[in-house]
């Protein structure tokens, strides 16, 4: 349906090809979260892999920082319509986490859990093969608290709410369980290129 009088502003051609449908490009870095930014003491920080309630492996901050590090640079897309190009992150890939724990993924699904009690679901297949990391640096610096520091999940090929801030662990689940936003009407998977914003999209 053409909107009377709307001409709009097209992004430059190379940008247009990198922008998923319905998104616009932003230069700054918007912040979205459910509540206040949690204050996290690195001396008490833990990152834990669980299967259901059972802990599989846990790291302190010092131990986590000693794991193999990977850099990733690319585009991120928020369900609230902004996209940001060429963001630079550094952290520990999901593959390296499993290797350091000496395990293979016990199930095909997991929930990322944050220090703010936020959860979001991601299929394990979307984390393996260097597609995702637990990031601890952004643009060469520690991740600012508003952007999820000290550590956040980074799954850049899905809408950014899947990249849980202040992540404290990953919990493997037997089936694909909805997390916080998914229970509030957001899509179970969240592919920006298929515009999977809400349930039923």
């Amino acid at each position, binding site marked *: *349906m*053409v*909107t*009377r*009088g*709307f*001409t*709009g*502003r*097209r992004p430059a051609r190379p940008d247009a090809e990198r922008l998923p*449908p*319905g998104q*616009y490009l*932003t230069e*700054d*870095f*918007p*912040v*979205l*979260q*459910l*509540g*206040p*930014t*949690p*204050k996290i003491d690195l001396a008490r920080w833990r990152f834990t892999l669980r299967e259901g309630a059972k802990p599989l492996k846990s790291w302190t901050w010092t131990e986590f920082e000693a794991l193999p590090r990977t850099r990733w640079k690319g585009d991120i897309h928020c369900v*609230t*319509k*902004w996209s940001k190009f060429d963001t630079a992150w550094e952290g520990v890939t999901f593959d390296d986490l499993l290797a350091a724990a000496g395990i293979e993924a016990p199930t095909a699904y997991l929930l990322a859990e944050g220090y*703010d*009690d936020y959860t979001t679901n991601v299929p394990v297949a979307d984390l393996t093969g260097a597609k995702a990391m637990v990031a601890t640096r952004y643009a060469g610096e520690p991740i600012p608290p*508003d952007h999820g520091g000290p550590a956040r999940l980074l799954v850049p090929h899905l809408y950014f709410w899947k990249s849980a801030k202040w992540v404290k662990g990953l919990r493997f689940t037997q089936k694909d369980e909805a997390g*916080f*936003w998914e*229970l*509030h*009407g957001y899509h179970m998977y969240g592919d920006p290129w298929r515009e999977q914003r*809400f*349930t*039923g*999209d």
Partner: protein
Amino acid sequence: MPLVWQEARITAAVPETPRVRRLTLAVGWGKPFRAGQHVDVRLTAPDGHQAQRSYSIASSPTRPETIDLLIERLADGEVSGFFADVAEPGDVIELRGPIGGAFVWDPAEGGPLLLVGGGSGVVPLLSMLRHRAEGAPDVPALLLTSARTPDDVIAREELMRRDAEEPNFQLRLVLTRVPGGRRIDADTVRAALAALGTPAHTFVCGSNPFVSAASDLLVEAGLPARTIRTERFGG
């Protein structure tokens, strides 16, 4: 339930402040929305180029057949510029909603209710205040809102009237760009909490820097983080 795009007709378009225009839209939702929810709008150019944005609903859920959006013109805003300069009553746009299940308040949740809004971040809080006045006028509520100048205060006359007439509602206005202007700070937060009592529910909405600063102040003032819900815009 899938959220489907539907056509919504603009029934009114009037200036709210020098920078904000109020658009009233007739919507055909089968169910009521909740105060604090938003909608997505989609505009399409003749060559197929589309732009989408999200806007909070300002009106009360007790009037579900139409919604008000208060749209601030942003510098170089592709969509806000259309709503500021082009859109007129009778025009039809595409819209879907209501969206959002976290930044919402229902009268049944009670209070005290603390609402903190920066600039156009007051919009979803207005929907809550309007709903409260009709559905739960006994719930104590305080709106702490920041604007640049008196002319930039969205719904200023309504808020001042509510402050004067509603026994359980208090308005705290902070102006940033006037002589002696200030921002919301530890003192204004402390005074608001002293006037309201400990809120059961706190909602903070505004730009990223505003919400970061205000929610940090509220936590520092002793409010449990889980009682504070935030919504931010920017980018």
